[in-house]
């Protein structure tokens, strides 16, 4: 456990009332790689404190249960039929974790300090709204990309611009996006192969209707060096007015808010 009072105050604030963007960044800078462990531990402590008070045995109304169940099933179904890249990453569990890494893999997502500031209502895919036929949904991404371009009248195709990052040397490709269908694909050539256990690529969609400090997460992906690669975009939120697509390099599993230290590719709309 960190002994720095400022870090402790930030951790406690995060798990009780949430941090703003500045607090999030400060906490990340202070704790670095220890952030996940520390957040996990305090979040569990706060949850256990609330559980200790009891009063948590109120029956969920049937209508609420049914609605939540259906939303889950729709999201899970859409994830399995539209993606060839798995979304859930099950990191290997340590059988005898070192004491300093007790919470190593437990809740990496708690970096979602920044999720406090993301508008996440209704980020699951819209049920029953997929316009392409069943056979198309299961086709290879290349075919699906081509069909999207052919069938979606509003689809845009935007070339990637490589930055000076070494991973982007010689990289090219494009991003295709349909606003009406909220579907898109990224195509890459020459982007550096990544070791998923060390780092992964992550897409960000800058939405003109949102605060540009918090672009929409478009999904995490890998480049395995097999020539041209097409990756489906998995936007976590509905994108109202995309203005920029950007690919960054992040830690395994991605992040909720990118530090933008390594931006490798960008594609500007318009």
């Amino acid at each position: 456990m960190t002994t720095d009072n400022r870090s402790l105050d930030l951790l406690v604030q995060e798990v009780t009332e949430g941090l703003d963007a500045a607090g999030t960044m400060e906490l990340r800078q202070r704790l670095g790689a220890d952030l996940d462990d520390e957040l996990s531990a305090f979040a569990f402590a706060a949850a256990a404190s609330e559980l200790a008070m009891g009063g948590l045995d109120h029956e969920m109304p049937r209508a609420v249960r049914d609605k939540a169940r259906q939303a889950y099933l729709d999201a899970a179904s859409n994830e399995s039929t539209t993606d060839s890249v798995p979304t859930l990453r099950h990191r290997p569990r340590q059988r005898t974790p070192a004491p300093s890494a007790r919470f190593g893999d437990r809740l990496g997502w708690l970096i979602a300090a920044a999720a406090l500031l993301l508008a996440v209502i209704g980020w699951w895919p819209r049920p029953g709204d997929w316009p392409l036929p069943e056979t198309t949904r299961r086709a290879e991404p290349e075919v699906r990309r081509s069909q999207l371009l052919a069938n979606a009248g509003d689809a845009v195709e935007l070339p990637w611009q490589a930055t000076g990052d070494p991973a982007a040397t010689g990289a090219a490709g494009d991003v295709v996006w349909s606003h009406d269908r909220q579907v898109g694909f990224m195509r890459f050539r020459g982007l550096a192969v990544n070791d998923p256990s060390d780092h992964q690529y992550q897409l960000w969609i800058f939405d003109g209707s949102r605060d540009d400090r918090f672009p929409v997460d478009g999904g995490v992906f890998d480049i395995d060096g097999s020539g041209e690669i097409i990756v489906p975009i998995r936007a976590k939120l509905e994108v109202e007015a995309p203005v920029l697509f950007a690919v960054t390099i992040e830690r395994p599993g991605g992040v909720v808010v990118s530090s933008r230290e390594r931006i490798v590719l960008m594609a500007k709309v318009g």
Partner: protein
Amino acid sequence: MLWERLAQGEPAAVDEALSRFGRLIWSLARRHTPDQAEAEDAVQDILLDLWKCAGRYDARFGSPATFVATIARRRLIDRRRRNQRHQQGDSLVGDDGLTVDLPDPRADKAEANADAALAMQALRELPGHEREAILLSTYQGMSHSQIAAHTNQPLGTVKTYIRRGLIRVRERLDRRQDTALGEEAAP
């Protein structure tokens, strides 16, 4: 295992999760949101968060209920910050809900949950002002500023109370996990 099946999107898994944790999720949602409509939306968010995070659950580090409660609280804090208002009104806590008395453990109304029991032990050992600050925060969902106003204490003092108290709770949970890991590693 439920968590693996839930992570895979198995329909029966979500039914089992709702059966086991539906009351917990609903109770937390109603406690921390201003009305039923918000609570219903929150429940959907929480269930989808569980789906996303299910593959990372490890029983050695906490009970399933604590895991679910942690995820639920995360989402509810998100929503509260986004809505930028403190939940009152027809929440389950009620107008007279600003209580900081711990429940009688003999009444067995609290979760039959080892983590909660350890947390309660830690909370009982805290000085009254620290315990009050933590419970106003975690149970009542009050912001630190609201707690400072309610208790007529400086904001910095409230933050110190909450920090100290949560550290005690965390240390108690850590000792339990160290014991569990030691038992697992023993020949």
